């Protein structure tokens, strides 16, 4: 249970405070409601590139990192399909430095040409390091456009191609900032050694004067229902074959989301899971095989991925996965198995509430999705999942025509 209080500034910035006196630190988390899904299809990777530029100095402060480190602080950020999230921790007696830094970059960036030029290179190196120079690194670059034809989830957060990053201009950067980086498009959470009475005056002082922007109305194209199975076969210089099967599922806003999430846990969470025992241990077809949900806010994907044991045929591996999926479609999950995955959700939740950064992020994400309360009530949604519900979702989602399959062959295995 994360206790919190909430208020909203006149400019629309929502502020949430969670006090935890067990630590001498404070975490400030600012979530901006902008992600890769808000990008122009011809300028993909931009939300993430922009995240890098947020550290390149703001209108009144030439460097973001240096003054924060000078007061013992540390920070980072990440971009997803749906949001961009910035977080920092610092000793509580220096918390005003966080307000000073974060409010200035919400007010305006420095828009330095040098920063743009350097961060373009840094992000291109990131593209190479994580997606190109890694075995299986390009999987999502291939899978996303296979599964999505219309919705912007068809590209990865890093972008479709390096060229889009190379082509980013300062004009694009400014337009993106003006459109998305506004107090009324952000949620700020403070957690740790701080109270709401300390936060209120600081928030008014530093964030209050930032003007609100026009409300951003998101109008994304809706992915049409998939009507036939899609496949893609590639060959790469990797040691073993891999298979990826993805199915369209509901959005995180739907209550069925929790059902599908637990279904994936039954299939593959931990060494007592079905996939582990059947496909790895008993049939010895896979080295590694997983089922999970992408967790996107718009309609997401139910994913099954596996790396094959050397010598196993791709079609045999796929058949074995399908047989397991078929079981969950035709037989009700037994109560003990369902209780087991629910217990795991409960304990994971308790573990995640151990540090102030996790708690701040949970609150921010919950507020963005629905309401900060959700951070505490989500567990009830998991607890209300039934065996019948799982069977129903399995039958709805796991169908031939709703599937996209990537066959990722090892070059060596073909020889």
């Amino acid at each position, binding site marked *: 249970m994360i206790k919190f209080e909430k208020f909203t500034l006149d400019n629309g910035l929502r502020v949430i405070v969670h006090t*935890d006196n*067990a*630590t*001498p*630190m404070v975490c400030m988390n600012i979530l901006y409601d902008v992600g890769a899904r808000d990008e122009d299809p011809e300028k993909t990777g931009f939300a993430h590139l922009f995240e890098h530029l947020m550290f390149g100095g703001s*209108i*009144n*402060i030439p460097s973001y*990192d*240096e003054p924060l*480190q*000078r*007061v*013992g*602080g*540390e920070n980072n950020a990440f971009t997803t399909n749906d949001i961009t999230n910035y977080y920092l*921790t*610092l*000793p509580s*007696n220096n918390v005003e*430095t966080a307000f*000073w830094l974060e409010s200035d970059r919400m007010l305006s960036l420095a828009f330095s040409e040098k920063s743009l030029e*350097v961060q373009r*290179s*840094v*992000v291109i*190196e*990131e593209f*190479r*390091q*994580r997606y190109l*120079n*890694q*075995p299986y690194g390009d999987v999502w670059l291939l899978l996303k456009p296979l599964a999505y034809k219309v919705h912007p989830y068809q590209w990865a957060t890093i972008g479709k191609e390096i060229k889009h990053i190379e082509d980013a201009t300062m004009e694009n950067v400014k337009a993106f900032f003006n459109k998305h980086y506004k107090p009324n498009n952000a949620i700020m959470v403070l957690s740790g050694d701080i109270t709401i009475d300390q936060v209120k005056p600081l928030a008014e002082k530093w964030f209050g004067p930032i003007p609100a922007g026009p409300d951003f109305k998101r109008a994304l194209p809706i992915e049409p229902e998939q009507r036939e199975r899609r496949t893609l076969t590639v060959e790469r*210089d*990797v*040691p*073993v074959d891999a298979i990826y099967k993805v199915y369209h599922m509901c959005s995180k806003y739907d209550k069925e989301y929790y059902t599908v999430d637990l279904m994936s846990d039954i299939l593959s969470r931990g*060494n*007592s899971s079905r996939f*582990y*025992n059947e496909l*790895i241990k008993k049939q*010895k077809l896979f*080295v*590694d095989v997983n089922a999970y949900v992408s967790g996107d806010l718009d309609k997401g994907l139910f994913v099954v991925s596996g*790396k094959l*044991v050397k010598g196993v045929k791709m079609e045999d591996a796929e058949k074995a996965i399908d047989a397991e999926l078929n079981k969950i479609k035709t037989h009700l999950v037994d109560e*003990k198995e369902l*209780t*087991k995955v629910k*217990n*795991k959700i*409960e*304990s994971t939740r*308790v*573990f995640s509430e*151990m*540090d*102030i950064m996790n708690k701040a992020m949970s609150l921010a994400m919950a507020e963005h999705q629905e309401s900060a309360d959700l951070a505490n009530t989500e567990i009830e949604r998991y607890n209300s999942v039934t065996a019948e519900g799982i069977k129903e979702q399995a039958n709805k989602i796991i169908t031939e025509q709703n599937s996209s399959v990537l066959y990722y062959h090892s070059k060596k295995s073909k020889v």
Partner: protein
Amino acid sequence: MIQTLDRKTAPPFHALEKIRIAHALTQKLDNGVPVSIINAGTQDLVKIEFVFSAGVWEQSHSLQASCTNAMLDEGTKTKTAAEIADSIDYYGAFLEQDVNQDWAYLTLYTLVKHLPSVLPVMEDVLKNPLFPENEFGILLQNKRQTFLVDNQKVAHIARTRFNALIFGKDVSYTYKLKVEDFDLLKRQQLIDFYNTWYKSNNCKIIVSGKTDNQIVKLLNKHFGGNDWKAEAKLPEIEAGKIQSDPKQKHLILREDAVQSAVRIGRILFNKLHPDYHSMKVLNTILGGYFGSRLMTNIREDKGYTYGIGSRLISLRNAGYFFISTEVGVDVCKPALTEIYNELKRLRNEPVSNAELDLVKNYMLGDFVRSIDGPFALAEKFKKIMLYDLSYSYYDEFVETVKNITPDVLQELANKYFAEDQLHELVVGKV
């Protein structure tokens, strides 16, 4: 009255008040196993960690230490692997196994309320493992494939090959794993390793979370007896001699690489050495945080890389220092030049007071961050316990950070970062 807000000036800085670190209290089970307890936190959780000196250092065959550890929960005299997994997962608990160069760990995370249900499983896993042939075969096969995948990653190749460069052939710490080793390891070697090292007289327990002395009773019930004591004295391990490769610069060519992995470093010392705390400061300046000189120059100014950093590694019987990065093959050469320039700058010029103040504050803040919460406190305790150090080690660290001067840092840079003492490895293309 309208007061304009001064956004250009930083709010006043406040130094950290006295840093307090909650101590572990150590007592002994009936059979002499030390149990150290850190009672902290608000969540109803507990972590119980068993530590054995049963790492790579103790093994006489490649993979022996890691496979023995991984096989503990793969079947006991009374339970199959699936039954063990079920009885842990059902209670939402987690059983983790891990091995590094020096130590082997078996760790249980659980809600306090489920402790009586899961502790017997942990006891069974620790005292009665069977090392079934079938499970062992699967483990080896899976580890072999992971090995093959890892060997396609330039960073992995750099890490493992660099290790061999600085340690030489004869030391237990040298990375020696070859694909043939997966065929050579025998089940009996795991049983032997287990029988030698996974014993009460080679075990330490650390408990952290919302806990109290009641847990000692419970631990005594399951682990306090003399039924898992080694019969023989623990063997002494021959240390072997560190002999770094006489050739300094090495390239492993990868024609198809789009990035090169770079490692530069040397054998140094572990945390028992008097210069260790000071070297932590020097290393932080060089490559130990986001604002470090390497990051500032090579990422934030030149854009050659997504990340670059440097680290000091402390092992029980040795220590080393290294810089690592992955850079575009087209900029590998200038990146190398800049790395050596940064080392040279540390040798030739004193660090400015402004930079040093920043680093001191950052390090103290980071230290406070690292003692936040019961599990973090347990980690902190473990790092001194395993070296037989006391908490005064951390007081000395804080004092060193507060008082170190630019002159001392420059002296250390000249002593330890001389270019002719460094090994360089590039995997990819220069």
